[in-house]
């Protein structure tokens, strides 16, 4: 128990450090940005004194290090500042968008795993047979497809030609289907390949032979021994793949005009609205760091050997 707690504490500390590192990185990027944020915010007609006054008020006349801690302090209070282009509180903007992004990525994750794990298992059991070959070729092709193009094809088929699903935007569950499937498919290919190769590796393990020698039936060996062990790396992948999925969501949200954070980020970048960009990167990083920590802990639960190190 003590070991487990120490293990969790170590991962948490690491997570905090990573988040700190990312805030420094993001801050540096924003500092290096061309143009002064204040110039973007205020009218050109405002006098130089007035600009200096605003700068002092925002702490922008301080050296960068002081500015950083000023900014960090605000973030820790949940204050990401005001958006330049939309003139709204960034925290509110993000909170409005966050549920949609979570809904999209959550749905995509579910599709990914519910489809790829059974398929991977099936292909591994039928290794070298027609099913395995077909699935392998299909997934390589899927893996090579840009999600935005898949999205466009789906729109063409299901929204424009068949007219059975909404084209874009959010309007209830049916509008979730196309973006979620689009987001899930390329990653699904990767999880499928991992599951298949892990299952094949585990099938070669001696303890699987032991299970058979004990008189355990085929199905039980496959589920209780093979899949159970193969799931360890697959589960780690589940959590590690989140950054890619969220990255994919940024693109897919823009294809389907999905009202999530990705679209907001894109707008922020197009308009050089740095408080939005900072805020979103920060939130996304927190999300991935938390997921990675959960992933490590779940892996520790699944694999008793990890807890010892």
């Amino acid at each position, binding site marked *: 128990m003590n070991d487990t707690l120490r293990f969790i504490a170590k991962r948490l500390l690491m997570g905090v450090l990573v988040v700190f590192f990312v805030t420094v990185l993001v801050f540096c990027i924003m500092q290096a940005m061309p143009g002064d944020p204040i110039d973007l915010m205020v009218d050109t007609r405002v006098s130089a004194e007035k600009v200096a006054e605003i700068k002092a008020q925002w702490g922008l006349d301080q050296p960068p290090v002081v500015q950083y801690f000023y900014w960090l302090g605000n973030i820790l209070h949940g204050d990401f500042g005001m958006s330049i282009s939309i003139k709204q509180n960034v925290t509110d903007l993000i909170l409005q968008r966050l549920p949609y992004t979570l809904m999209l990525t959550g749905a995509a994750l579910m599709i990914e795993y519910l489809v790829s794990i059974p398929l991977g298992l099936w292909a591994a059991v039928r290794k070298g047979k027609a099913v395995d070959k077909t699935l392998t070729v299909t997934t*390589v092709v899927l893996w090579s497809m840009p999600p935005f193009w898949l999205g466009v094809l789906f729109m063409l088929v299901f929204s424009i030609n068949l007219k059975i699903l909404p084209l874009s935007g959010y309007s209830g569950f049916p509008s979730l289907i196309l973006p979620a499937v689009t987001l899930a498919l390329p990653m699904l290919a990767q999880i499928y390949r991992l599951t298949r190769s892990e299952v094949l590796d585990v099938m070669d393990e001696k303890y699987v032979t032991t299970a058979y020698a004990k008189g355990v039936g085929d199905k039980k060996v496959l589920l209780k021994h093979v899949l159970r062990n193969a799931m360890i790396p697959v589960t780690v992948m589940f959590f590690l793949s989140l950054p890619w999925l969220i990255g994919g969501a*940024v693109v897919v949200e823009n294809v389907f005009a999905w009202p999530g954070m990705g679209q907001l980020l894109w707008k922020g970048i197009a308009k050089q609205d740095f408080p939005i960009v900072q805020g979103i990167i920060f939130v996304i990083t927190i999300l991935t760091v938390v997921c990675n920590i959960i992933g490590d802990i779940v892996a520790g639960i699944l694999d008793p050997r990890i807890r010892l190190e």
Partner: protein
Amino acid sequence: MKEKLKAIAKNRMFLVGFLLFFTVVVVAIFAPYIAPHTYDEQNLAMKLAAPSAEYPFGTDQYGRCIFSRVIFGSRIALNVGLTAVIIETLIGVTLGILAGYYGKAVDKVILFVTDATWSIPPIVLAMAIVLMLGPSSQNVAISIAVVSWAQFTKIVRAKVQSLKNLSYIEAARIYGESDTNIILRYILPNLTSTIVILATLALPSAILSTTSMGFLGLGAQQPQPDWGMILSEGIKYIGKAPWISIVPGLAIVWTVLGFNLAGEGVKELLDPRLKV
């Protein structure tokens, strides 16, 4: 090696991959001779025209030939992808060798930075970097490199750690060879196949990222024929002129699939057991 080459020559997937890969390279080199038009030639009388003999894949909203734009676009995709891979290989391999060879504090710092970089979604960080540097295909290459070197570092580091304990490298150290000498003369040559595999497998994903950035409007700017950008502009006309979006997408799949399959072939040839 010879036997492996034979086995790979028999594998239909790899063959298809090398074929796709080869055509893309040929098309990129001879683009001006293959394309019927230049990439920026406008024909305002033929806006959003459907595929015809003159415009095999139709035209866009300015009456530009989609076929020609896609052909010329292969140059941007390959250029940016290749530049990104070269930069990320340099960063990733250097850090991986340093971390693996020196260990201790150096290793810890590099490992931490690697893990931290890994917790920001690559495309999001790349977007922020392009925001800082300004949108252009060059900056896209830099941003992709900056977000994707971590994979190289992790694998190279592990490999160097195991190489370091080989008896002849240990002997060289006891003999008093300098670290630089050991790294350049003993360790680097042993890493060649790993680096080649990693780089070939990184190329398709770099190309995919390039087109994603182009799709978001952060890559090469008009009138440059960036595949991602052509595709994203086409969405506006998806009902009237779907070919604008479909054709560059096909080109992307063609290229990325070819490189992926060819990369698998290279991996099978050099080191089938490397886990990437």
